Protein backbone atom coordinates (compact mmCIF):
# COMPACT_ATOMS: atom_id res chain seq x y z
CA UNK A 1 0.00 0.00 0.00
CA UNK A 2 1.72 3.20 -1.15
CA UNK A 3 1.08 6.86 -1.90
CA UNK A 4 -2.54 7.92 -2.30
CA UNK A 5 -3.80 4.45 -1.45
CA UNK A 6 -2.04 4.54 1.93
CA UNK A 7 -3.25 8.06 2.57
CA UNK A 8 -6.81 7.06 1.69
CA UNK A 9 -6.53 4.16 4.17
CA UNK A 10 -5.21 6.49 6.84
CA UNK A 11 -8.05 8.94 6.26
CA UNK A 12 -10.60 6.12 6.39
CA UNK A 13 -9.23 4.82 9.70
CA UNK A 14 -9.11 8.33 11.14
CA UNK A 15 -12.71 8.90 10.09
CA UNK A 16 -13.88 5.73 11.84
CA UNK A 17 -12.01 6.67 15.02
CA UNK A 18 -13.32 10.24 15.06
CA UNK A 19 -16.84 9.10 14.20
CA UNK A 20 -16.92 6.57 17.06
CA UNK A 21 -15.34 8.94 19.57
CA UNK A 22 -18.03 11.49 18.82
CA UNK A 23 -20.82 8.93 18.81
CA UNK A 24 -19.66 7.57 22.19
CA UNK A 25 -20.44 10.98 23.66
CA UNK A 26 -24.04 10.69 22.52
CA UNK A 27 -25.78 8.23 24.85
CA UNK A 28 -29.21 9.60 23.90
CA UNK A 29 -30.09 6.67 21.62
CA UNK A 30 -28.83 3.85 23.80
CA UNK A 31 -25.58 1.91 23.76
CA UNK A 32 -23.32 1.59 20.72
CA UNK A 33 -20.96 -1.14 19.51
CA UNK A 34 -17.61 0.47 18.81
CA UNK A 35 -14.74 -0.92 16.78
CA UNK A 36 -12.00 1.50 17.78
CA UNK A 37 -8.66 -0.29 17.55
CA UNK A 38 -9.95 -2.59 14.81
CA UNK A 39 -9.99 -0.01 12.00
CA UNK A 40 -7.23 -1.71 10.03
CA UNK A 41 -9.33 -4.85 9.56
CA UNK A 42 -12.29 -2.96 8.10
CA UNK A 43 -10.21 -0.60 5.98
CA UNK A 44 -7.75 -3.23 4.75
CA UNK A 45 -10.57 -5.56 3.75
CA UNK A 46 -12.59 -2.86 2.00
CA UNK A 47 -9.51 -1.73 0.07
CA UNK A 48 -9.69 -5.10 -1.69
CA UNK A 49 -13.41 -5.06 -2.50
CA UNK A 50 -14.83 -3.72 -5.75
CA UNK A 51 -18.06 -1.84 -6.45
CA UNK A 52 -19.99 -4.99 -7.43
CA UNK A 53 -19.00 -6.85 -4.26
CA UNK A 54 -21.09 -7.02 -1.11
CA UNK A 55 -19.93 -6.91 2.50
CA UNK A 56 -21.90 -8.45 5.37
CA UNK A 57 -20.84 -8.11 8.98
CA UNK A 58 -21.78 -8.94 12.54
CA UNK A 59 -23.14 -6.30 14.84
CA UNK A 60 -19.88 -4.38 15.32
CA UNK A 61 -20.34 -2.66 12.01
CA UNK A 62 -19.65 1.06 12.16
CA UNK A 63 -16.05 0.74 10.97
CA UNK A 64 -16.87 -1.67 8.13
CA UNK A 65 -19.83 0.45 6.95
CA UNK A 66 -17.75 3.63 6.82
CA UNK A 67 -14.78 1.83 5.25
CA UNK A 68 -17.10 0.50 2.56
CA UNK A 69 -18.08 4.03 1.69
CA UNK A 70 -21.50 4.42 3.30
CA UNK A 71 -22.45 8.06 3.80
CA UNK A 72 -21.28 8.98 7.34
CA UNK A 73 -24.24 11.33 7.80
CA UNK A 74 -26.78 8.61 7.07
CA UNK A 75 -24.89 6.09 9.23
CA UNK A 76 -24.83 8.58 12.11
CA UNK A 77 -28.52 9.35 11.63
CA UNK A 78 -29.31 5.64 11.74
CA UNK A 79 -27.32 5.14 14.93
CA UNK A 80 -29.12 8.08 16.51
CA UNK A 81 -32.53 6.76 15.41
CA UNK A 82 -33.43 9.32 12.75
CA UNK A 83 -35.60 8.58 9.74
CA UNK A 84 -32.89 9.94 7.41
CA UNK A 85 -30.71 7.01 8.47
CA UNK A 86 -29.61 4.23 6.12
CA UNK A 87 -32.47 2.05 7.42
CA UNK A 88 -34.95 4.89 8.06
CA UNK A 89 -34.00 4.65 11.71
CA UNK A 90 -35.54 1.19 12.04
CA UNK A 91 -32.44 -0.99 12.16
CA UNK A 92 -30.15 0.94 14.45
CA UNK A 93 -26.97 -0.40 15.95
CA UNK A 94 -26.06 -3.84 14.71
CA UNK A 95 -28.36 -3.69 11.68
CA UNK A 96 -26.89 -1.01 9.41
CA UNK A 97 -27.56 -1.77 5.75
CA UNK A 98 -26.79 0.09 2.53
CA UNK A 99 -26.67 -2.51 -0.25
CA UNK A 100 -26.43 0.21 -2.92
CA UNK A 101 -23.00 1.08 -1.47
CA UNK A 102 -21.92 -2.57 -1.39
CA UNK A 103 -22.70 -2.88 2.31
CA UNK A 104 -25.41 -5.54 2.23
CA UNK A 105 -25.77 -5.18 5.93
CA UNK A 106 -24.87 -6.07 9.45
CA UNK A 107 -26.90 -8.46 11.56
CA UNK A 108 -26.64 -8.55 15.32
CA UNK A 109 -27.26 -12.28 15.82
CA UNK A 110 -23.74 -13.62 16.34
CA UNK A 111 -22.93 -15.86 13.37
CA UNK A 112 -26.30 -15.15 11.76
CA UNK A 113 -24.94 -13.21 8.82
CA UNK A 114 -22.58 -16.05 7.85
CA UNK A 115 -25.62 -18.03 6.66
CA UNK A 116 -27.06 -15.04 4.87
CA UNK A 117 -23.74 -14.19 3.20
CA UNK A 118 -23.61 -17.65 1.65
CA UNK A 119 -27.09 -17.06 0.21
CA UNK A 120 -26.03 -13.73 -1.28
CA UNK A 121 -22.94 -15.45 -2.71
CA UNK A 122 -25.11 -18.21 -4.19
CA UNK A 123 -27.39 -15.63 -5.77
CA UNK A 124 -24.36 -13.90 -7.33
CA UNK A 125 -22.97 -17.21 -8.57
CA UNK A 126 -26.30 -18.16 -10.15
CA UNK A 127 -26.60 -14.69 -11.74
CA UNK A 128 -23.11 -15.10 -13.27
CA UNK A 129 -21.99 -11.73 -11.95
CA UNK A 130 -18.34 -10.99 -11.25
CA UNK A 131 -19.13 -9.83 -7.71
CA UNK A 132 -18.06 -11.63 -4.59
CA UNK A 133 -19.25 -11.55 -0.99
CA UNK A 134 -17.11 -10.88 2.07
CA UNK A 135 -18.47 -11.74 5.49
CA UNK A 136 -16.81 -10.20 8.52
CA UNK A 137 -17.45 -11.74 11.92
CA UNK A 138 -15.83 -11.81 15.32
CA UNK A 139 -14.15 -14.60 17.23
CA UNK A 140 -17.46 -14.89 19.10
CA UNK A 141 -19.07 -16.23 15.92
CA UNK A 142 -16.30 -18.74 15.37
CA UNK A 143 -17.77 -21.16 17.89
CA UNK A 144 -21.24 -21.02 16.33
CA UNK A 145 -22.55 -23.78 14.08
CA UNK A 146 -23.27 -21.35 11.27
CA UNK A 147 -19.59 -20.96 10.41
CA UNK A 148 -18.99 -24.70 10.33
CA UNK A 149 -22.06 -25.45 8.21
CA UNK A 150 -21.33 -22.63 5.78
CA UNK A 151 -17.64 -23.48 5.41
CA UNK A 152 -18.78 -26.91 4.27
CA UNK A 153 -21.57 -25.83 1.95
CA UNK A 154 -19.64 -22.92 0.40
CA UNK A 155 -16.62 -25.09 -0.31
CA UNK A 156 -18.78 -27.84 -1.81
CA UNK A 157 -20.53 -25.29 -4.05
CA UNK A 158 -17.41 -23.15 -4.71
CA UNK A 159 -19.29 -20.05 -3.62
CA UNK A 160 -17.63 -16.65 -4.15
CA UNK A 161 -17.38 -16.05 -0.40
CA UNK A 162 -14.54 -14.63 1.65
CA UNK A 163 -14.65 -15.40 5.38
CA UNK A 164 -12.93 -12.76 7.48
CA UNK A 165 -12.71 -13.44 11.20
CA UNK A 166 -11.90 -10.28 13.10
CA UNK A 167 -10.43 -11.96 16.17
CA UNK A 168 -10.48 -9.13 18.69
CA UNK A 169 -9.77 -11.61 21.52
CA UNK A 170 -13.01 -11.17 23.41
CA UNK A 171 -16.62 -12.17 23.03
CA UNK A 172 -18.15 -9.64 25.43
CA UNK A 173 -15.94 -10.71 28.36
CA UNK A 174 -15.05 -14.29 27.44
CA UNK A 175 -11.44 -14.56 26.23
CA UNK A 176 -10.88 -16.35 22.95
CA UNK A 177 -8.55 -18.82 24.67
CA UNK A 178 -11.35 -19.93 27.02
CA UNK A 179 -13.93 -20.40 24.31
CA UNK A 180 -12.22 -21.58 21.12
CA UNK A 181 -10.16 -24.73 20.61
CA UNK A 182 -8.01 -24.27 17.47
CA UNK A 183 -4.43 -23.01 17.78
CA UNK A 184 -5.05 -20.53 14.98
CA UNK A 185 -8.65 -19.88 13.98
CA UNK A 186 -7.61 -20.06 10.33
CA UNK A 187 -6.69 -23.72 10.88
CA UNK A 188 -10.37 -24.48 10.31
CA UNK A 189 -9.94 -23.65 6.62
CA UNK A 190 -7.38 -26.42 6.22
CA UNK A 191 -10.02 -29.09 6.78
CA UNK A 192 -11.90 -27.76 3.77
CA UNK A 193 -8.80 -27.25 1.65
CA UNK A 194 -9.40 -23.53 1.19
CA UNK A 195 -6.69 -20.84 1.32
CA UNK A 196 -6.51 -19.73 4.95
CA UNK A 197 -4.26 -17.35 6.81
CA UNK A 198 -3.82 -15.76 10.20
CA UNK A 199 -2.50 -12.23 9.90
CA UNK A 200 -1.77 -9.12 11.95
CA UNK A 201 -5.05 -7.23 11.98
CA UNK A 202 -3.47 -4.13 13.50
CA UNK A 203 -1.52 -3.41 10.33
CA UNK A 204 -3.65 -2.08 7.49
CA UNK A 205 -1.03 -2.89 4.87
CA UNK A 206 -0.89 -6.52 5.95
CA UNK A 207 -4.68 -6.80 5.95
CA UNK A 208 -4.99 -5.12 2.57
CA UNK A 209 -2.38 -7.34 0.95
CA UNK A 210 -3.89 -10.54 2.35
CA UNK A 211 -7.39 -9.38 1.44
CA UNK A 212 -6.37 -8.57 -2.15
CA UNK A 213 -4.86 -12.03 -2.49
CA UNK A 214 -7.91 -13.73 -0.98
CA UNK A 215 -10.37 -11.67 -3.03
CA UNK A 216 -8.49 -12.55 -6.23
CA UNK A 217 -8.77 -16.24 -5.35
CA UNK A 218 -12.47 -16.01 -4.58
CA UNK A 219 -13.19 -13.93 -7.68
CA UNK A 220 -11.45 -16.48 -9.87
CA UNK A 221 -14.25 -18.93 -9.12
CA UNK A 222 -12.16 -21.36 -7.08
CA UNK A 223 -14.39 -21.06 -4.03
CA UNK A 224 -14.05 -19.49 -0.59
CA UNK A 225 -11.00 -18.31 1.35
CA UNK A 226 -10.53 -17.64 5.06
CA UNK A 227 -8.64 -14.84 6.82
CA UNK A 228 -8.15 -14.51 10.55
CA UNK A 229 -7.15 -10.98 11.52
CA UNK A 230 -5.70 -10.69 15.01
CA UNK A 231 -6.92 -7.40 16.42
CA UNK A 232 -7.60 -5.64 19.70
CA UNK A 233 -10.70 -3.80 20.73
CA UNK A 234 -9.80 -0.58 22.54
CA UNK A 235 -13.15 -0.15 24.29
CA UNK A 236 -15.41 -2.52 26.19
CA UNK A 237 -18.01 -4.65 24.36
CA UNK A 238 -20.44 -1.74 24.18
CA UNK A 239 -20.58 1.84 25.41
CA UNK A 240 -22.51 0.62 28.45
CA UNK A 241 -20.68 -2.66 29.10
CA UNK A 242 -18.15 -3.13 31.94
CA UNK A 243 -14.49 -3.19 30.95
CA UNK A 244 -12.88 -6.41 32.13
CA UNK A 245 -9.25 -5.72 31.24
CA UNK A 246 -6.69 -4.10 33.52
CA UNK A 247 -5.39 -0.58 32.91
CA UNK A 248 -1.93 -1.95 32.20
CA UNK A 249 -3.38 -4.38 29.65
CA UNK A 250 -5.40 -1.64 27.99
CA UNK A 251 -2.40 0.66 27.81
CA UNK A 252 -0.39 -2.08 26.13
CA UNK A 253 -3.25 -2.75 23.68
CA UNK A 254 -3.64 0.92 22.81
CA UNK A 255 0.06 1.17 22.05
CA UNK A 256 -0.67 -1.02 19.03
CA UNK A 257 -2.93 1.58 17.42
CA UNK A 258 -3.16 0.98 13.64
CA UNK A 259 -3.60 4.68 12.96
CA UNK A 260 -0.48 5.67 14.89
CA UNK A 261 1.40 2.89 13.14
CA UNK A 262 0.46 3.91 9.60
CA UNK A 263 0.99 7.59 10.37
CA UNK A 264 4.50 6.78 11.60
CA UNK A 265 5.27 4.68 8.54
CA UNK A 266 4.08 7.38 6.16
CA UNK A 267 6.01 10.09 7.93
CA UNK A 268 9.16 7.97 7.96
CA UNK A 269 8.94 7.44 4.20
CA UNK A 270 8.06 11.03 3.40
CA UNK A 271 4.49 10.23 2.40
CA UNK A 272 3.02 12.50 5.07
CA UNK A 273 4.12 15.56 7.01
CA UNK A 274 2.66 17.19 10.12
CA UNK A 275 0.68 19.72 8.10
CA UNK A 276 -0.89 17.01 5.93
CA UNK A 277 -1.72 14.98 9.03
CA UNK A 278 -3.40 18.00 10.60
CA UNK A 279 -5.36 18.55 7.36
CA UNK A 280 -6.60 14.96 7.46
CA UNK A 281 -7.63 15.28 11.09
CA UNK A 282 -9.50 18.49 10.38
CA UNK A 283 -11.13 16.98 7.32
CA UNK A 284 -12.51 13.94 9.15
CA UNK A 285 -13.59 16.09 12.11
CA UNK A 286 -15.60 18.21 9.69
CA UNK A 287 -17.24 15.12 8.18
CA UNK A 288 -18.19 13.89 11.64
CA UNK A 289 -19.53 17.27 12.75
CA UNK A 290 -21.58 17.46 9.55
CA UNK A 291 -22.91 13.96 10.28
CA UNK A 292 -23.95 14.97 13.79
CA UNK A 293 -25.56 18.17 12.52
CA UNK A 294 -27.42 16.24 9.81
CA UNK A 295 -28.69 13.75 12.39
CA UNK A 296 -29.72 16.40 14.88
CA UNK A 297 -31.79 18.26 12.34
CA UNK A 298 -33.43 15.03 11.15
CA UNK A 299 -36.70 13.75 12.59
CA UNK A 300 -37.31 10.59 14.55
CA UNK A 301 -39.61 8.20 12.68
CA UNK A 302 -43.33 8.88 12.92
CA UNK A 303 -44.84 6.34 15.41
CA UNK A 304 -47.07 5.16 12.54
CA UNK A 305 -43.93 3.77 10.90
CA UNK A 306 -43.95 1.00 13.52
CA UNK A 307 -46.34 -0.72 11.11
CA UNK A 308 -44.72 0.09 7.75
CA UNK A 309 -42.46 -2.29 5.80
CA UNK A 310 -43.49 -5.23 8.01
CA UNK A 311 -45.16 -7.52 5.45
Amino acid at each position, binding site marked *: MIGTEAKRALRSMMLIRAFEETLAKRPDHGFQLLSSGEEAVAVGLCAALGPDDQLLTGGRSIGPALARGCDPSRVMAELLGRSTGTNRGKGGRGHL*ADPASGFFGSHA*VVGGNIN*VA*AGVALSMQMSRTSGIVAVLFGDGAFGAGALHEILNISTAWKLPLLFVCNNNQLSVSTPRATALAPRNLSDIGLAFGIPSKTIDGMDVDTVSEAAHEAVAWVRSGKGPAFLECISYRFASHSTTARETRSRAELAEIRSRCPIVKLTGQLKATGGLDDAAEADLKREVAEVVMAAIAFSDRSEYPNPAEALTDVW
Partner: protein
Amino acid sequence: MFFREAIARAMREEMRKDERVFILGQDVGAFGGSYREFDGLFGEFGAERVRDTPVAEAAMVGVGVGAAAAGHRPVVSITYMDFMMLGFDPLINYGAKLRYKTGGQLRAPVVVKTTAGAKGQGVAHSQCIESWLMSVPGLKVVAPSTPADAYGLLKAALREDGPVVYVDHKRLFPVAGEVPLADSIVPIGKANILRGGSDLTITTHSYMTRIALEAAKSLEADGISAEVIDLRSLAPLDMDAIGASVGKTRALLTLEEGQVTSGVGIEVIGRVHELLGLVPAVRVGALPAPVSSNPVLEQACLPDASRVVTAARKLLSQKRD
Protein backbone atom coordinates in the same frame (compact mmCIF):
# COMPACT_ATOMS: atom_id res chain seq x y z
CA MET B 1 -54.05 -35.26 -10.08
CA PHE B 2 -52.27 -36.47 -6.95
CA PHE B 3 -51.32 -33.95 -4.26
CA ARG B 4 -47.60 -34.50 -4.85
CA GLU B 5 -48.08 -34.01 -8.59
CA ALA B 6 -49.86 -30.71 -7.97
CA ILE B 7 -46.78 -29.51 -6.08
CA ALA B 8 -44.43 -30.55 -8.87
CA ARG B 9 -46.66 -28.84 -11.43
CA ALA B 10 -46.76 -25.60 -9.45
CA MET B 11 -42.97 -25.66 -9.15
CA ARG B 12 -42.49 -26.49 -12.83
CA GLU B 13 -44.74 -23.67 -14.03
CA GLU B 14 -43.18 -21.08 -11.73
CA MET B 15 -39.62 -22.20 -12.55
CA ARG B 16 -40.34 -21.96 -16.28
CA LYS B 17 -41.82 -18.51 -15.88
CA ASP B 18 -39.28 -17.03 -13.48
CA GLU B 19 -35.62 -18.00 -13.59
CA ARG B 20 -35.11 -16.59 -10.10
CA VAL B 21 -37.10 -19.50 -8.65
CA PHE B 22 -35.04 -22.49 -7.51
CA ILE B 23 -35.25 -25.30 -4.97
CA LEU B 24 -32.76 -26.28 -2.33
CA GLY B 25 -33.10 -29.06 0.16
CA GLN B 26 -32.17 -32.58 1.12
CA ASP B 27 -32.87 -35.22 -1.53
CA VAL B 28 -34.70 -32.83 -3.82
CA GLY B 29 -32.54 -33.54 -6.88
CA ALA B 30 -32.50 -36.82 -8.84
CA PHE B 31 -34.31 -38.48 -5.92
CA GLY B 32 -37.26 -36.11 -6.55
CA GLY B 33 -38.00 -35.24 -2.92
CA SER B 34 -38.82 -37.52 -0.02
CA TYR B 35 -42.44 -37.73 -1.17
CA ARG B 36 -41.63 -37.46 -4.90
CA GLU B 37 -43.18 -34.01 -4.75
CA PHE B 38 -40.38 -32.64 -6.96
CA ASP B 39 -40.48 -35.50 -9.49
CA GLY B 40 -39.16 -34.49 -12.91
CA LEU B 41 -37.83 -31.08 -11.91
CA PHE B 42 -34.19 -32.15 -11.68
CA GLY B 43 -34.37 -33.54 -15.23
CA GLU B 44 -35.81 -30.33 -16.63
CA PHE B 45 -33.95 -27.69 -14.62
CA GLY B 46 -30.71 -29.41 -13.57
CA ALA B 47 -28.61 -29.52 -10.44
CA GLU B 48 -28.13 -25.77 -10.14
CA ARG B 49 -31.83 -24.95 -9.76
CA VAL B 50 -32.87 -28.20 -8.08
CA ARG B 51 -30.08 -28.26 -5.59
CA ASP B 52 -29.28 -31.00 -3.09
CA THR B 53 -27.86 -29.77 0.22
CA PRO B 54 -26.04 -31.30 3.16
CA VAL B 55 -28.10 -32.07 6.25
CA ALA B 56 -27.84 -28.59 7.76
CA GLU B 57 -31.24 -26.95 8.14
CA ALA B 58 -29.95 -23.72 9.68
CA ALA B 59 -27.63 -23.23 6.71
CA MET B 60 -30.33 -24.24 4.23
CA VAL B 61 -32.83 -21.70 5.51
CA GLY B 62 -30.05 -19.13 5.96
CA VAL B 63 -28.81 -19.60 2.41
CA GLY B 64 -32.41 -19.38 1.25
CA VAL B 65 -33.15 -16.07 2.96
CA GLY B 66 -29.79 -14.69 1.84
CA ALA B 67 -30.37 -15.66 -1.79
CA ALA B 68 -33.87 -14.19 -1.53
CA ALA B 69 -32.52 -10.94 -0.10
CA ALA B 70 -30.12 -10.78 -3.05
CA GLY B 71 -32.90 -11.14 -5.64
CA HIS B 72 -33.65 -14.85 -6.10
CA ARG B 73 -36.87 -16.63 -5.12
CA PRO B 74 -35.80 -19.87 -3.47
CA VAL B 75 -37.91 -22.69 -2.12
CA VAL B 76 -36.16 -24.29 0.84
CA SER B 77 -37.47 -27.79 1.37
CA ILE B 78 -37.26 -28.92 4.99
CA THR B 79 -38.28 -32.58 5.03
CA TYR B 80 -39.92 -32.46 8.47
CA MET B 81 -41.33 -29.42 10.19
CA ASP B 82 -39.65 -30.56 13.43
CA PHE B 83 -36.31 -29.70 11.80
CA MET B 84 -37.44 -26.20 10.97
CA MET B 85 -36.54 -25.36 14.56
CA LEU B 86 -32.91 -25.44 13.41
CA GLY B 87 -33.71 -22.82 10.80
CA PHE B 88 -35.76 -20.49 12.99
CA ASP B 89 -32.86 -18.07 13.49
CA PRO B 90 -32.39 -17.12 9.83
CA LEU B 91 -36.11 -17.33 9.11
CA ILE B 92 -37.41 -15.38 12.08
CA ASN B 93 -34.51 -13.16 13.11
CA TYR B 94 -33.48 -12.27 9.57
CA GLY B 95 -36.01 -13.18 6.88
CA ALA B 96 -39.19 -12.05 8.59
CA LYS B 97 -37.61 -8.79 9.78
CA LEU B 98 -35.50 -7.92 6.77
CA ARG B 99 -37.89 -5.53 5.05
CA TYR B 100 -38.62 -3.72 8.31
CA LYS B 101 -35.10 -3.52 9.65
CA THR B 102 -33.61 -2.26 6.39
CA GLY B 103 -36.29 0.40 6.05
CA GLY B 104 -37.65 -1.27 2.92
CA GLN B 105 -34.31 -1.64 1.11
CA LEU B 106 -34.31 -5.44 1.12
CA ARG B 107 -36.96 -8.17 1.12
CA ALA B 108 -36.73 -11.93 1.53
CA PRO B 109 -39.12 -13.66 -0.91
CA VAL B 110 -38.33 -17.18 0.26
CA VAL B 111 -40.72 -20.12 0.60
CA VAL B 112 -39.86 -22.60 3.34
CA LYS B 113 -41.74 -25.71 2.30
CA THR B 114 -42.11 -28.43 4.85
CA THR B 115 -44.28 -31.29 6.07
CA ALA B 116 -46.10 -31.59 9.37
CA GLY B 117 -48.15 -34.30 10.99
CA ALA B 118 -48.00 -37.88 12.13
CA LYS B 119 -47.45 -40.86 9.87
CA GLY B 120 -45.67 -43.37 12.07
CA GLN B 121 -42.37 -41.49 12.26
CA GLY B 122 -42.21 -40.74 15.94
CA VAL B 123 -41.64 -38.00 18.46
CA ALA B 124 -39.27 -35.80 16.45
CA HIS B 125 -40.81 -36.28 12.98
CA SER B 126 -44.52 -35.78 13.60
CA GLN B 127 -45.05 -32.38 15.13
CA CYS B 128 -47.39 -29.65 13.91
CA ILE B 129 -45.81 -26.39 15.05
CA GLU B 130 -47.57 -24.03 12.65
CA SER B 131 -48.96 -22.04 15.55
CA TRP B 132 -45.44 -21.20 16.76
CA LEU B 133 -44.98 -19.24 13.55
CA MET B 134 -48.32 -17.43 13.44
CA SER B 135 -47.16 -14.71 15.82
CA VAL B 136 -44.10 -13.66 13.82
CA PRO B 137 -44.64 -10.27 12.16
CA GLY B 138 -43.57 -10.45 8.53
CA LEU B 139 -44.10 -14.18 8.17
CA LYS B 140 -47.02 -15.80 6.32
CA VAL B 141 -48.07 -19.38 6.95
CA VAL B 142 -50.20 -21.54 4.64
CA ALA B 143 -51.28 -25.19 4.81
CA PRO B 144 -53.28 -26.77 1.96
CA SER B 145 -55.58 -29.76 2.31
CA THR B 146 -56.32 -30.56 -1.36
CA PRO B 147 -54.24 -30.90 -4.53
CA ALA B 148 -55.89 -27.77 -5.94
CA ASP B 149 -54.95 -25.73 -2.87
CA ALA B 150 -51.43 -27.20 -2.82
CA TYR B 151 -51.02 -26.05 -6.42
CA GLY B 152 -52.60 -22.64 -5.92
CA LEU B 153 -51.09 -21.79 -2.56
CA LEU B 154 -47.57 -22.84 -3.53
CA LYS B 155 -47.76 -20.66 -6.63
CA ALA B 156 -49.12 -17.75 -4.59
CA ALA B 157 -46.33 -18.23 -2.03
CA LEU B 158 -43.72 -18.13 -4.80
CA ARG B 159 -45.04 -14.75 -5.95
CA GLU B 160 -44.98 -13.16 -2.49
CA ASP B 161 -42.40 -10.49 -1.67
CA GLY B 162 -41.74 -11.77 1.83
CA PRO B 163 -41.15 -15.14 3.51
CA VAL B 164 -43.89 -17.77 3.48
CA VAL B 165 -43.92 -21.06 5.35
CA TYR B 166 -45.83 -23.59 3.28
CA VAL B 167 -46.84 -26.71 5.23
CA ASP B 168 -47.91 -30.00 3.67
CA HIS B 169 -49.16 -32.97 5.64
CA LYS B 170 -47.39 -36.28 5.08
CA ARG B 171 -50.67 -38.18 4.75
CA LEU B 172 -51.89 -35.90 1.97
CA PHE B 173 -49.27 -36.69 -0.69
CA PRO B 174 -51.10 -39.74 -2.11
CA VAL B 175 -54.47 -37.94 -2.14
CA ALA B 176 -56.01 -37.27 -5.56
CA GLY B 177 -58.24 -34.36 -6.55
CA GLU B 178 -59.22 -31.93 -9.28
CA VAL B 179 -56.71 -29.19 -10.08
CA PRO B 180 -57.57 -26.29 -12.40
CA LEU B 181 -56.17 -26.79 -15.90
CA ALA B 182 -55.39 -23.10 -16.25
CA ASP B 183 -52.42 -21.44 -14.61
CA SER B 184 -53.94 -19.96 -11.44
CA ILE B 185 -53.30 -19.22 -7.80
CA VAL B 186 -55.18 -19.52 -4.51
CA PRO B 187 -54.80 -16.17 -2.78
CA ILE B 188 -53.11 -16.25 0.62
CA GLY B 189 -55.46 -15.13 3.40
CA LYS B 190 -58.64 -16.74 2.03
CA ALA B 191 -60.31 -19.60 3.88
CA ASN B 192 -62.47 -22.17 2.11
CA ILE B 193 -65.89 -23.33 3.29
CA LEU B 194 -65.80 -27.07 2.70
CA ARG B 195 -69.32 -27.74 3.92
CA GLY B 196 -72.19 -25.44 4.78
CA GLY B 197 -73.98 -25.78 8.13
CA SER B 198 -76.05 -23.88 10.66
CA ASP B 199 -75.54 -25.31 14.17
CA LEU B 200 -71.79 -24.93 14.70
CA THR B 201 -68.63 -23.88 12.85
CA ILE B 202 -65.60 -26.16 12.74
CA THR B 203 -62.37 -24.40 11.74
CA THR B 204 -59.43 -26.60 10.83
CA HIS B 205 -56.62 -26.99 8.31
CA SER B 206 -54.46 -29.49 6.45
CA TYR B 207 -55.12 -33.20 7.03
CA MET B 208 -57.56 -32.49 9.88
CA THR B 209 -60.07 -31.18 7.30
CA ARG B 210 -60.75 -34.86 6.55
CA ILE B 211 -61.42 -35.64 10.20
CA ALA B 212 -63.68 -32.57 10.42
CA LEU B 213 -65.70 -33.67 7.38
CA GLU B 214 -66.01 -37.19 8.78
CA ALA B 215 -67.24 -35.79 12.10
CA ALA B 216 -69.66 -33.45 10.32
CA LYS B 217 -71.14 -36.43 8.54
CA SER B 218 -71.64 -38.28 11.84
CA LEU B 219 -73.21 -35.19 13.39
CA GLU B 220 -75.53 -34.85 10.42
CA ALA B 221 -76.90 -38.33 11.16
CA ASP B 222 -77.88 -36.93 14.57
CA GLY B 223 -79.53 -33.92 12.99
CA ILE B 224 -76.67 -31.53 13.78
CA SER B 225 -75.54 -29.27 10.96
CA ALA B 226 -71.82 -28.38 11.06
CA GLU B 227 -70.13 -25.83 8.81
CA VAL B 228 -66.53 -26.83 8.08
CA ILE B 229 -63.98 -24.15 7.25
CA ASP B 230 -60.55 -24.99 5.89
CA LEU B 231 -58.41 -22.08 7.07
CA ARG B 232 -55.78 -22.71 4.34
CA SER B 233 -53.94 -19.58 5.46
CA LEU B 234 -52.98 -19.42 9.16
CA ALA B 235 -51.17 -16.09 8.88
CA PRO B 236 -53.01 -14.02 7.91
CA LEU B 237 -56.27 -15.59 9.11
CA ASP B 238 -59.40 -14.97 7.03
CA MET B 239 -61.44 -13.39 9.82
CA ASP B 240 -64.12 -12.25 7.36
CA ALA B 241 -65.02 -15.82 6.48
CA ILE B 242 -64.63 -17.15 10.01
CA GLY B 243 -66.56 -14.25 11.55
CA ALA B 244 -69.41 -14.58 9.06
CA SER B 245 -69.74 -18.29 9.74
CA VAL B 246 -69.65 -18.09 13.56
CA GLY B 247 -71.96 -15.06 13.40
CA LYS B 248 -74.47 -17.42 11.83
CA THR B 249 -73.88 -20.63 13.85
CA ARG B 250 -73.02 -18.98 17.22
CA ALA B 251 -70.82 -21.96 18.19
CA LEU B 252 -67.17 -22.62 17.34
CA LEU B 253 -65.12 -25.79 17.42
CA THR B 254 -61.47 -25.57 16.45
CA LEU B 255 -59.64 -28.67 15.32
CA GLU B 256 -55.92 -29.10 14.82
CA GLU B 257 -53.43 -31.95 14.89
CA GLY B 258 -50.97 -29.95 16.99
CA GLN B 259 -51.18 -28.85 20.60
CA VAL B 260 -54.19 -26.79 21.69
CA THR B 261 -52.11 -24.75 24.17
CA SER B 262 -51.22 -21.55 22.34
CA GLY B 263 -52.40 -23.32 19.22
CA VAL B 264 -54.15 -22.27 16.02
CA GLY B 265 -57.56 -22.80 17.60
CA ILE B 266 -57.12 -20.52 20.58
CA GLU B 267 -56.04 -17.73 18.23
CA VAL B 268 -59.16 -18.26 16.11
CA ILE B 269 -61.35 -18.30 19.23
CA GLY B 270 -59.74 -15.16 20.65
CA ARG B 271 -60.26 -13.24 17.44
CA VAL B 272 -63.85 -14.46 17.09
CA HIS B 273 -64.57 -13.28 20.62
CA GLU B 274 -63.06 -9.89 19.85
CA LEU B 275 -65.24 -9.72 16.76
CA LEU B 276 -68.54 -11.16 18.01
CA GLY B 277 -68.38 -11.20 21.80
CA LEU B 278 -68.49 -14.44 23.72
CA VAL B 279 -69.82 -17.42 21.80
CA PRO B 280 -69.44 -20.99 23.04
CA ALA B 281 -66.14 -22.38 21.81
CA VAL B 282 -64.08 -25.51 22.25
CA ARG B 283 -60.65 -26.65 21.13
CA VAL B 284 -59.81 -30.13 19.88
CA GLY B 285 -56.21 -31.15 19.23
CA ALA B 286 -53.59 -33.73 20.11
CA LEU B 287 -53.23 -34.94 23.69
CA PRO B 288 -50.60 -32.96 25.64
CA ALA B 289 -47.95 -35.59 24.94
CA PRO B 290 -45.31 -36.41 22.32
CA VAL B 291 -46.51 -38.34 19.25
CA SER B 292 -45.04 -41.84 19.32
CA SER B 293 -44.13 -43.96 16.31
CA ASN B 294 -45.96 -46.78 18.07
CA PRO B 295 -49.26 -46.95 16.11
CA VAL B 296 -51.31 -47.56 19.25
CA LEU B 297 -49.88 -44.50 21.00
CA GLU B 298 -49.90 -42.37 17.87
CA GLN B 299 -53.57 -43.02 17.33
CA ALA B 300 -54.32 -42.40 21.00
CA CYS B 301 -52.62 -39.02 20.83
CA LEU B 302 -54.22 -37.63 17.69
CA PRO B 303 -57.71 -36.20 17.33
CA ASP B 304 -60.22 -38.39 15.50
CA ALA B 305 -63.82 -37.95 14.36
CA SER B 306 -65.31 -39.42 17.52
CA ARG B 307 -63.47 -36.90 19.71
CA VAL B 308 -64.68 -34.11 17.47
CA VAL B 309 -68.26 -35.41 17.66
CA THR B 310 -68.11 -35.63 21.46
CA ALA B 311 -66.71 -32.11 21.74
CA ALA B 312 -69.35 -30.80 19.30
CA ARG B 313 -72.20 -32.28 21.34
CA LYS B 314 -70.83 -30.74 24.51
CA LEU B 315 -70.43 -27.41 22.74
CA LEU B 316 -74.02 -27.47 21.54
CA SER B 317 -75.27 -28.21 25.03
CA GLN B 318 -73.42 -25.07 26.22
CA LYS B 319 -74.95 -23.12 23.36
CA ARG B 320 -78.45 -24.08 24.53
CA ASP B 321 -77.75 -23.16 28.17
